[in-house]
């Protein structure tokens, strides 16, 4: 099941996600993917270091219960939170990467994996960040794919603790922002997995 939620403030989305996770843990619902966007926010994962939040300015900073370090979310991103029952968490990461790689490919872009650096990369720059939590074998959180042009906020942080690579977006790679990337993402997701 895919639920498109639109623009949802981070804290509100976290509460909603928690409900969905609990429902999934009780097997009341099938695997579910939430597609959403957040107003600008900097999130610090369990392995994050506040010193990687360089100059947040007026962007709120929150700690969050997911794997990974520091990242930025904004309305120019597509965020997909996958609430799925899994048996192999690394496979789940590779699955999330593959969906993004397939989406990129449908736009004619070559998304790549970088050994030891979970996420999806285009031409050496990160286009998609991934961070996951699992509780009783049900996953939550997921991925953030950069879609629109506004990447400036990434300069306020050290994304994922990586200092030697930049970030990019669909807009930057294609020269325009594709219409309704969520529909594309949903179609490819559903062609890959039942949810």
């Amino acid at each position, binding site marked *: 099941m895919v639920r498109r939620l639109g623009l949802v403030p981070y804290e509100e989305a976290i509460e909603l996600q928690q409900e969905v996770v609990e429902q999934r843990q009780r097997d009341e619902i099938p695997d579910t993917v939430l597609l959403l966007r957040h107003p600008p926010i900097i999130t610090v994962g369990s392995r994050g270091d506040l010193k990687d939040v360089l100059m947040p300015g007026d962007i709120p900073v929150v700690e969050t219960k997911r794997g990974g370090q520091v990242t930025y979310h904004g309305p120019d991103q597509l965020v997909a939170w996958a609430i799925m029952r899994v048996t192999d968490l690394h496979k789940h990461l590779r699955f999330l990467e593959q969906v993004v790689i397939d989406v990129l490919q449908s736009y004619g872009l070559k998304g790549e994996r970088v050994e030891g650096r979970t996420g999806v990369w285009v031409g050496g720059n990160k286009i998609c960040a991934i961070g996951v939590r699992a509780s009783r074998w049900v996953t939550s959180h997921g991925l953030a794919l950069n879609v629109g042009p506004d990447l400036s906020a990434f300069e306020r942080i050290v994304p994922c603790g990586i200092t030697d690579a930049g970030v990019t977006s669909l807009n930057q790679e294609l020269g325009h922002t594709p219409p309704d990337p969520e529909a594309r993402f949903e*179609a490819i997701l559903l062609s890959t997995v039942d949810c």
Partner: protein
Amino acid sequence: MTDVIMPQMGESIAEGTIVKWFKEVGQPVKKDEPLFEMSTDKVDAEIPSPGEGVLLEILVGPGTTVDVGKVVGRIGVAGTAPSGGQQSTVDSRQEKTAPARELVAAAAPARTNSHGVASVEELRRVRSSPLVRKIAAEHGVDLARVGPGTGISGRVTKTDIMAFLEKGPSVQEAPAQAPVTVPARFFHTPTPGQKFEPFSPMREKIAEHMVMSQAISAHVCTFFEVDMTRVARLRSKHRAAYESKGVKLTFTPFVMKAAIDALLEFPILNSSIVDKKVYYHPNVNLGLAVALDWGLIVPVVHKAEEKSLLGLTRSLADLAERARIKKLAPEEVAGGTFTITNPGIYGSLIGTPVINQPQVAILGMGAVTKRAVVTEEDAIAIRHMVYMALSFDHRIIDGATADKFMSRVKATLQEFPESAM
């Protein structure tokens, strides 16, 4: 007492870091209650308690990375002394060799929904004496875990359960981590070093779809032999003209055209079944199975009935090419209403295709080969022949309809109008 071990979170994950314990030593803990949190580079996971009791000791503290299978804590009855003298020591070096028994315990699903296991469990529970059941209940032991007893039909005796209780924790309560939702049906013990390959998402999808289709539809297959000599001649004659327009003319577009005409005449073959209702599709969206090095994909020519033979040839070449370079848009593999598959390109004479759900029929063509044939005039002639198979869903399509459809396909191919070129 129950060992708490670092669980296997994934095939390629060899170690994990303890982030924090949700319980302190001495606190009670219920089975499946979150006990500690672990983390690997991009994943955090809450690990549920493998048993019920009191957290007796924490062997690995927060911030320490340990191998999968290592005992990180112990749970037991309040007041019990932890076994072994290394109470609360945190030493990650010694743990590189996790005892094999614990690794096995980590991998073995303790609870499965498999019917076989349930019935054995039931058998032992029912057949054990009330005394044995009482002892088991008092110690929180599941009799199914005691294993086959020495009593009649594997019944667990008092001696068995007392011996079991004395043996100690790890056997008594194997920590269960991996929930198994689908019971394994086949068992295979890999030989050392034997290669294996996990399913790709595409393979998983294909496997699931094939089994589902066989379960949903009442597959029946009918076979026809078609004389393709006229088509072969038309193909030779017009091949150059098509090539000058940039496309290679094969037999497949002719078969597509013949199938489209027949589908328009027998619309039930161009339908779907939903909730005991037949939905007729207004257009023929023709799926074409394309073999890939890494699997199989079925791109769709939408509104195929609006296309000329040249248009079909172009669409076929374009979709097959883009399928091979993974450049198909999602909408181009969706919405098919009927499918054609061509195992003949690999030399197969005939096959029995599996219906591409939620469609109701699929046409397979074998290799076109020259054969000696007895003609209408009782002469023996060399003709281009092909076998065709139609798998159809007998829930709504009866044999007579399927065969009329195939007769129509056959007639169109044998009398293919040159005007359609």
